[in-house]
């Protein structure tokens, strides 16, 4: 059933239908609507056989999730920004212990200066934590990704973050079709943990590993991560078969002309400039590129859905013969460039590709279609330099007028 829903509501309802055993909540904008919605469902009984725990910090949110997951429950929490960094230690720990927790990250900038608006700095800071990171292009995908995330995480024994742009998606209302309870029950296998704190088969979880064994435990984690790409892709494919719509996947292809998502779209050609991007900016890029294609400009769009594991092969396949890339990045590697650009660069090492890095939308700066078209056009014309900050204002830090809204900024 298509319905009009706020992104956070869509995610909350989908998560509830994945039947988590324990949900941990600690408020931080912009993820609050998700856990608020879940708290209502926990009270109304829509979320059954589930403990909803109001913890005292994000660190404890992840820690409670760790305990719950280790005790045999499907565990879920959500956070953003400073909250994600505050729980960082536990984030790494959950991954190291192979606990398939699913967490929504409502992507938000990391201070200082404190800023509640969207960019990808928070999740990027956790890129090596050992979690899957699945990015939603829109609210439909944000909801659907949670189903895939639970399935893939639990098969792999690797926790998963579903990243959705804060406010831009979490607070936006769209026309969506949610997976129903029956559909999810038919799709998502019951949680059967590979290790559990079981009184009948006691085990010790979380030992100390010395120099003689630590490298190998990390190597195994690495191997599992290499397998993760196949597993994420497989569950995404299964999702498409089951629900009749695409979600997740690794590197996402778009029809060259309609710019609609299409896994059967051909790879880019040698003449094409390919725009690689992640998250909600893809929607804006779809609208920005369509008229350029109509004008006959050789521009293609490739989305990154699975940032972790990074889909090196899938990305190269989607790029085809193209050796000219513009990466729209929502996080900055200080002194270097876009974070995603670095990953794309490493994936394409040795291919002789030209890669432009465009850092856009930091701290909630709106990304405008016109600005994107402009930077693409300049790249096509060979006028674009290696690193560019989209819509950068010169002359220092602008001071907004008193009482101004975003419109006036």
């Amino acid at each position, binding site marked *: 059933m298509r319905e009009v829903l706020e992104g956070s509501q869509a995610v909350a309802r989908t998560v509830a239908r994945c039947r988590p055993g324990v949900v941990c909540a600690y408020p931080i904008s912009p993820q609050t609507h998700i856990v608020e919605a879940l708290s209502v469902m926990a009270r109304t009984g829509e979320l059954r056989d589930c403990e909803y725990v109001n913890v005292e910090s994000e660190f404890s949110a992840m820690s409670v999730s760790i305990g719950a997951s280790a005790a045999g429950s499907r565990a879920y929490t959500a956070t953003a920004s400073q909250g994600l960094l505050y729980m960082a230690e536990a984030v790494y720990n959950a991954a190291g212990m192979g606990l398939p927790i699913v967490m929504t990250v409502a992507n938000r900038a990391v201070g200082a200066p404190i800023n509640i608006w969207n960019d990808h700095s928070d999740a990027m800071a956790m890129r090596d934590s050992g979690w899957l990171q699945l990015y939603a292009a829109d609210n439909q995908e944000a909801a659907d990704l949670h189903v895939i995330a639970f399935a893939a995480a639990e098969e792999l024994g690797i926790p998963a973050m579903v990243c959705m742009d804060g406010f831009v998606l979490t607070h936006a209302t769209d026309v969506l079709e949610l997976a129903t309870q029956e559909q999810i029950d038919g799709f998502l296998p019951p949680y059967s943990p590979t290790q559990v704190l079981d009184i009948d088969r006691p085990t010790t979880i979380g030992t100390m590993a010395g120099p003689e064994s630590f490298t190998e435990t990390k190597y195994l984690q690495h191997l599992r991560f290499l397998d993760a790409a196949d597993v994420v892709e497989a569950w995404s494919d299964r999702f498409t078969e089951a629900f009749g719509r695409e979600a997740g996947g690794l590197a996402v292809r778009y029809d060259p002309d309609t710019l609609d998502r299409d896994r059967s779209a051909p790879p880019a050609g040698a003449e094409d400039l390919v725009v690689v991007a992640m998250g909600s900016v893809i929607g804006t890029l779809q609208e920005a590129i369509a008229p350029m294609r109509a004008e006959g400009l050789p521009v293609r769009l490739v989305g990154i859905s699975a940032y972790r594991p990074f889909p090196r092969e899938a990305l190269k396949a989607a790029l085809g013969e193209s050796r000219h890339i513009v990466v729209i990045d929502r996080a900055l590697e200080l002194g270097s460039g876009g974070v995603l650009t670095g990953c794309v660069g490493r994936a394409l090492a040795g291919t002789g590709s030209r890669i432009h890095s465009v850092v856009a939308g930091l701290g909630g700066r709106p*990304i405008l279609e016109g600005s994107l078209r402009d930077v693409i056009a300049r790249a096509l014309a060979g006028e674009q330099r290696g690193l560019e900050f989209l819509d950068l204002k010169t002359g220092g830090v602008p001071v907004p007028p008193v009482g101004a809204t975003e419109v006036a900024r």
Partner: protein
Amino acid sequence: MTQIRIHGRGGQGVVTAAEMLARAGFLAGHEVQAIPSFGSERTGAPVVAYCRFADVPLRTREPVLEPDVVLVQDPTLLGPAQPFAGVRPGGLVIVNTTEDAPWVREHAGDGEVDATVVTVPATRISLDTVGLPKPSAAMLGAYAGRADHVTLAAVQQVFRDRFPGRVGEANATAAAVAYAHVRGEPDPRIVPSAEVSHA
């Protein structure tokens, strides 16, 4: 595609208005999108929200820069919030005020803009009907009264769905009153005795 921008203050239900408008648009057969633009959640702070109606699924996430319709839920925002900024030629501006259109143009930052300016005492209507200064329903009713993007029935429906019972009904009434007001029709709450006698 129709793009709507709503100005208001924290606590006036600006974000709710955008979402309700999107829902009403969906009921009216559109693909819809509502995007709030948030600051920290502080009562009284200026807030903007956007809404889009289209015939194909909406993909873009950029804010509405050139609105077809602007709803100003608080007349004190006319100056600093620049509600007329970017309004498309021939656009529609609906302002919640007890004053008239010339007064609005006089106090808006860009009074010469090519747009139809409509005023509606939405706060007074909501106080009369809902009992609270929550002008959203009245503003959307006014919008339905001056454009065919949404219908009064759809606006009333979404408020009844969101707030089942008395509150929903009160909001539906507010929408109807504002609808009538901007169309110069009699207040629907006042049933003319003649109509009764003719019924």
